[in-house]
């Protein structure tokens, strides 16, 4: 179908030639005057036919190109001629440079990935019976606006694993291999005998002798984050062959109580792992009971430090910061893949279907492996289709605007900018530097000129 639509105009030109030649022979027999009259009338009619199109194109497409080129040579307000100053500014403005860098990433990565993915899927679907349904599903996003696609992916990329599906999967996978800590927010009460950096491990500042006891106070645990079974903290009696103690929440509701002491109303922190350490070796390990009490028994006489390993306090895995400054561009490219893969696959699939079966069968009979056939026969035969897909994608990627504008959250807008969004922000987004904005739009135009030449060449070649 694509062939019928973009059909080369071979027939067209021969057709026109034929019609004018027949017209010539026909009119030749008639007297000069009416013939000229008729021709003039026909021309006038032809011009009438093309006039609306040409007027609109002239006023709204051609004129703006000329205007923009001119405007790009003046300053922000349009009062002062600055020559190529705006173009120099493009290279010097860090934000614009970022946009150029991102556009380059886009143009290099997206078309390649899409063509590759499209080729792979086209090959895989070739022998599947429900290929049509599959193609339909993948092509569907082409009907969707970039705005809607942007909203769809903004939702999918949400940081909170309770909202963004991607992070829900990431966290789910992570947590199956790694249990969440019981007290991620807990931290020690400063200056009460414990030391350690935020996140643990925490150990006692001074050594504890066997037969002694310690009380380890923590804060920063919300009342509803304390396990339901927790009881009021109580220190156990010291044991002769070990160290006893209590791990507790050193914070009573209302802020009552003295820091560092077990006050009424303060609860134990059950399940906290406690270790006795001597010379860097763990001599005993235990877990705090419901009232926060623990006993480290079976210790040889001596001085130990009591340690609470970091595993108690590990911050829960938050998932990937998809829309952070580092990943925002790849994330948006991901959304772009979602939209365009179907296109690449269907077009390449049409190309695949046109490859003569005989060539493949012959190669198989000669004992060539599937991989070999793919590399040596399929890909070379597909080259023209792949080129068209690739070029098409390059042109479209160069102009990408909506997705970037929609998906990138405010704080990382600048990190995500491409030329088209940068042009918009510079011209209309507050800066209102129309000189620089025009220069950027001219650059954008210059970048698609090769595609323009490619189109014209292709057309002329097929038309000649």
């Amino acid at each position: 179908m694509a062939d019928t639509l973009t059909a080369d105009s071979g027939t067209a030109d021969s057709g026109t030639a034929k019609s004018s030649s027949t017209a010539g022979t026909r009119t030749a027999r008639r007297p000069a005057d009416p013939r000229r009259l008729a021709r003039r009338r026909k021309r006038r009619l032809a011009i009438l036919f093309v006039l609306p199109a040409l007027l609109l194109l002239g006023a709204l497409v051609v004129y703006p190109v000329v205007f923009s080129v001119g405007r790009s040579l003046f300053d922000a307000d349009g009062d002062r001629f600055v020559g190529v100053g705006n173009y120099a500014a493009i290279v010097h403005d860090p934000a614009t440079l970022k946009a150029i860098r991102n556009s380059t990433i886009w143009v290099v990565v997206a078309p390649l990935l899409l063509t590759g993915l499209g080729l792979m899927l086209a090959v895989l679907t070739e022998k599947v019976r429900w290929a049509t349904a599959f193609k339909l599903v993948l092509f569907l996003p082409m009907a969707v606006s970039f705005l809607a696609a942007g909203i769809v992916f903004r939702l999918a990329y949400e940081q909170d694993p309770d909202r963004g599906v991607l992070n829900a999967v990431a966290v789910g996978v992570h947590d199956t291999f790694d249990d969440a800590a019981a007290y991620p927010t807990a931290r020690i009460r400063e200056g009460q005998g414990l030391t350690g950096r935020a996140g643990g491990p925490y150990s006692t500042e001074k050594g504890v002798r066997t037969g002694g006891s310690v009380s380890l106070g923590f804060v920063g645990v919300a009342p509803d984050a304390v396990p339901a079974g927790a009881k009021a903290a109580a220190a156990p009696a010291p044991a002769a062959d070990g160290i006893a103690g209590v791990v507790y929440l050193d914070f009573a509701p209302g802020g009552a109580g003295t820091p560092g002491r077990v006050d009424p109303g303060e609860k134990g922190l059950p399940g906290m792992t406690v270790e006795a350490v001597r010379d860097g070796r763990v001599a005993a390990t235990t877990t705090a009971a419901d009232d926060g009490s623990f006993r480290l028994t079976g210790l040889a006489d001596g001085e130990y430090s009591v340690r609470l390993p970091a595993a108690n306090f590990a911050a829960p895995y938050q998932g990937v910061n998809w829309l952070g400054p580092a990943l925002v561009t790849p994330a948006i490219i991901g959304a772009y893949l979602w939209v365009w893969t179907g296109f690449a696959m269907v077009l390449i699939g049409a190309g695949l279907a046109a490859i003569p079966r005989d060539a493949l069968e012959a190669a198989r009979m000669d004992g060539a492996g599937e991989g070999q056939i793919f590399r040596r026969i399929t890909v070379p035969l597909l080259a023209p289709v792949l080129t068209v897909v690739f070029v098409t994608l390059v042109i479209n990627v160069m102009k990408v605007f909506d997705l970037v504008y929609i998906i990138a959250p405010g704080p990382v807008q600048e990190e995500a900018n491409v030329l088209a969004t940068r042009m918009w922000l510079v011209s209309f987004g507050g800066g209102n530097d129309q000189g620089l904005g025009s220069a950027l739009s001219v650059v954008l135009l210059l970048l698609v000129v090769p595609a323009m030449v490619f189109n014209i060449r292709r057309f002329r070649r097929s038309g000649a």
Partner: protein
Amino acid sequence: MSSHSAVERRRPARLLGSSVVQGLLILVALVWITPLAGLFLSSMRSERANASDGWWTALADPSQLSLDNYSALLKDSGIAQAFGNTVLISVPTTVLVVGIAALAGYAFAWLDFPGRDGIFLVVVGLLVVPVQIGLLPVAKLFGAVGLFGTIAGVVLFHVAYGLPFAVFLLRNYFAEIPGEMLEAARMDGGSEWRIFFRLVLPLGRPAIASLAIFQFLWVWNDMLVALLFADSGSQPLTVALQSQMRQFGSNIGVLAPGAFLSLVVPLVVFFAFQRHFVQGVMAGSVK
């Protein structure tokens, strides 16, 4: 014989391979559907539900779903008006592009006038001109003649930037009409107008359908052009929704149903005119 046995030998491996392939494709299809499903389910969950847990919980507990967001959205006159504006922008644009391009395409293919081929090459060249280059100059132009901020302005801009492809497509399609048919019609004394309406348009119907669908969806889905040329009274749905994006987290209750609303028409068009749509997109890809 030998080839037969070779195939025989490969069969179990192929079967295995094919089930792996099928599994892989099912996975891909699921990945493709999931984001849309997420949007759809989110659009039917309350603001509070969306804030506290993920849309996937609705799969296990469908009672979360309701149409409240939609009815609230439709009661919001701003959104309803924006939806109307989208229709008012995309339908006239489609009609105008098809009409103007059909006239021009016919003239480029079958009528003779000075500079015809040169002008057509320029049109081909304009195919890839990015709309960005037109934004600022046309805004100034429209401002001077009072079109800025109006639906008419948005439509005109879309028509102009839709024309190069439309003319290109229709000219090439019309050019394949056998010359004898046109000649015969002329001999019968048919005027060019008559030939255009009675012969060319009906013959060009497949291309026109693809073009119309492609153009309609293109404009329906546009945001950039309307973002500049429309004002608060003439803005289409995309722009109205875009203005809520800054506070994304708090606006899912508006954005998700809004986005889905904006999807419904393209989806219907997509499923109703699959073939034309695919053809239109394929042909329009050079744009």
